[in-house]
């Protein structure tokens, strides 16, 4: 009532801004997804301006669903996201448990470990795909060449030469091919986001009940049992949160895909949308709606979970 009105009104600017930000582009996407809308078409110039008279119903959705790229992009999205989630959580738990207890230089190790998270995605991709993973000039290429040279020189050695002459020459892997570039993306994103998982698990481990652990030791629980029956359940909730937050971020992964695998067929949903958006806006918009639905499925679970802790 009276004197709390103004303070309550203070949230309106943020609400209005976010409302516009959410509703305007999304309703345009929805609208475009139901009409024929392309940027260039000499035979049907009327399709190049959005209009209700170009109504296509679910035609764009059918087109997208039937296109080979869409299925591929969905598969790829899920493969990439799934692999990253598995790796970051597994590595994250291991590392967090390992560095949680105090040891000399713990602070420095923490700083070293968290650094990748702050590297901008574009640099992350450029760094990995060129300087590290390049099959000829990157560290990988140099290392492989070095090993091959070593083997070649040993083949001429007396006594053991015959053994090394049986070795095949090692082939460096090109991470710019369709399948391998997905792996490159998984490697670089895992590198970037494992620190995030570590940080969250460490924060959570610090709130672990130490008396409970001591009680467990008195009850005869070994290190493994403590980890399995106390620590891991304690981490259940943070793991769920890490999984969901990452899922949302990685479903819209873009810069890494764009940089690593432009045009080589390794697409995810955002990349496919970008491709469609070069001409076929209707299809891009329909794909966008699919992406929204996919993200919403994860988001609902995440929001439920966060909502529970809110207002406590």
């Amino acid at each position, binding site marked *: 009532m009276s004197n709390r009105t103004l*303070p309550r009104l203070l949230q309106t600017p943020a609400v209005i801004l976010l409302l516009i930000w959410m509703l305007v582009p*999304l309703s345009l996407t929805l609208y*475009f997804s139901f009409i024929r809308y392309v940027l260039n078409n000499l035979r049907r110039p009327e399709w190049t301006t959005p209009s209700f008279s170009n109504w296509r119903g679910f035609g764009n959705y059918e087109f997208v669903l039937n296109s080979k790229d869409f299925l591929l992009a969905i598969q790829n999205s899920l493969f990439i996201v799934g692999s990253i989630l598995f790796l970051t959580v597994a590595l994250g738990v291991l590392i967090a448990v390992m560095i949680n207890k105090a040891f000399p230089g713990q602070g420095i*190790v923490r700083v070293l470990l968290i650094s990748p998270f702050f590297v901008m995605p574009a640099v992350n991709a450029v760094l990995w795909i060129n300087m590290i993973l390049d099959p000829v000039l990157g560290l990988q290429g140099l290392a492989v060449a070095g090993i091959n040279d070593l083997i070649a020189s040993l083949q001429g050695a007396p006594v053991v030469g015959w053994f090394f002459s049986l070795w095949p020459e090692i082939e460096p892997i090109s991470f710019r091919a369709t399948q391998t570039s997905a792996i490159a993306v998984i490697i670089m994103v895992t590198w970037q986001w494992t620190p995030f998982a570590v940080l969250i698990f460490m924060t959570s481990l610090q709130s672990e009940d130490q008396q409970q652990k001591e009680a467990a030791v008195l009850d005869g629980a070994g290190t493994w049992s403590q980890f399995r029956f106390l620590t891991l359940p304690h981490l259940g909730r943070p793991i769920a949160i890490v999984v969901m937050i990452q899922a949302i971020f990685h479903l819209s992964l873009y*810069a890494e895909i764009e940089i690593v695998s432009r045009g080589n067929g390794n697409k995810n949903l955002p990349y496919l949308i970008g491709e469609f958006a070069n001409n076929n806006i209707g299809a891009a918009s329909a794909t966008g709606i699919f992406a929204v639905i996919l993200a919403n499925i994860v988001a609902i679970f995440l929001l439920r979970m966060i909502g529970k802790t*809110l207002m406590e």
Partner: protein
Amino acid sequence: MAIVATTTKFSVYGRPVLAWIVGLLFFFPIFWLVLTSFKTDADAVKPEFLFFFTPTLDNYLNMTENYDYWRFATNSVITSVFATIFALAVGIPSAYAMAFNPSRATKDVLMWMLSTKMLPAAAVLYPMTFLTKSLGLFDTHFMVIVVLMLINLPIVIWMLFTYFKEIPKDIIEAGQMDGVNTWGEVKEILIPLAWGGIASTALLCFIFCWNEAYWTVRLTTTEAATLSKLIEGNRAPEGLFFGRLSAVSAAAVGPIVVLGWFCQKQLVQGLTFGAVK
């Protein structure tokens, strides 16, 4: 399965050594980037100069010439700073209202704000391009600032909200009894008390703005292009320019990584929306 085999000896010596190895391994790519940035383009791809080479500063000195680095860097600074300022200007009053004058809808409003963050950007790619172009805002600082602010606003409000919630309501009420108006509550009590939280929120928001790589790439060409765009535009030098590309990349991430060290604790709260403590 190191954990099974844990003995006292392992805890005392093995664990720290392993931890250091993991830490160095994760830091290695950054170290490598910085190391490469001190090599000439030619040396950078030669195996004999892997670790031992004659360091040169040329790559840094020629950043302007090679990449027009400072123009992109200036754009990054301008857009990130203003986006952060505006996000705080809108976010502080909003978080204050929700923390101290909640209504029954507050929880839902907060959740809804968060849900806007979860919309995939790509879904609205064309409408955004279309709107900015028709408003004549394509490739302008203004547009980049607005978009950066909007995508970070939910996180900013959430972080501020969790910090503000920690301030006892009594203190705000004492202020009311002592005769402050709404503006006074914010200025005299809230901001001084939550200063640390506001600073870390600002820092994190700035980092996110700086690293943003979807809209800054798609909504700019040259005028308002940021460092993300610069790096993305030089993605594949095919080994020709590893030295200079490393230098410009290191210059793009260096300041942010250092800033990040200072707010790693807040990061947890900010990114998990207070759900992990």
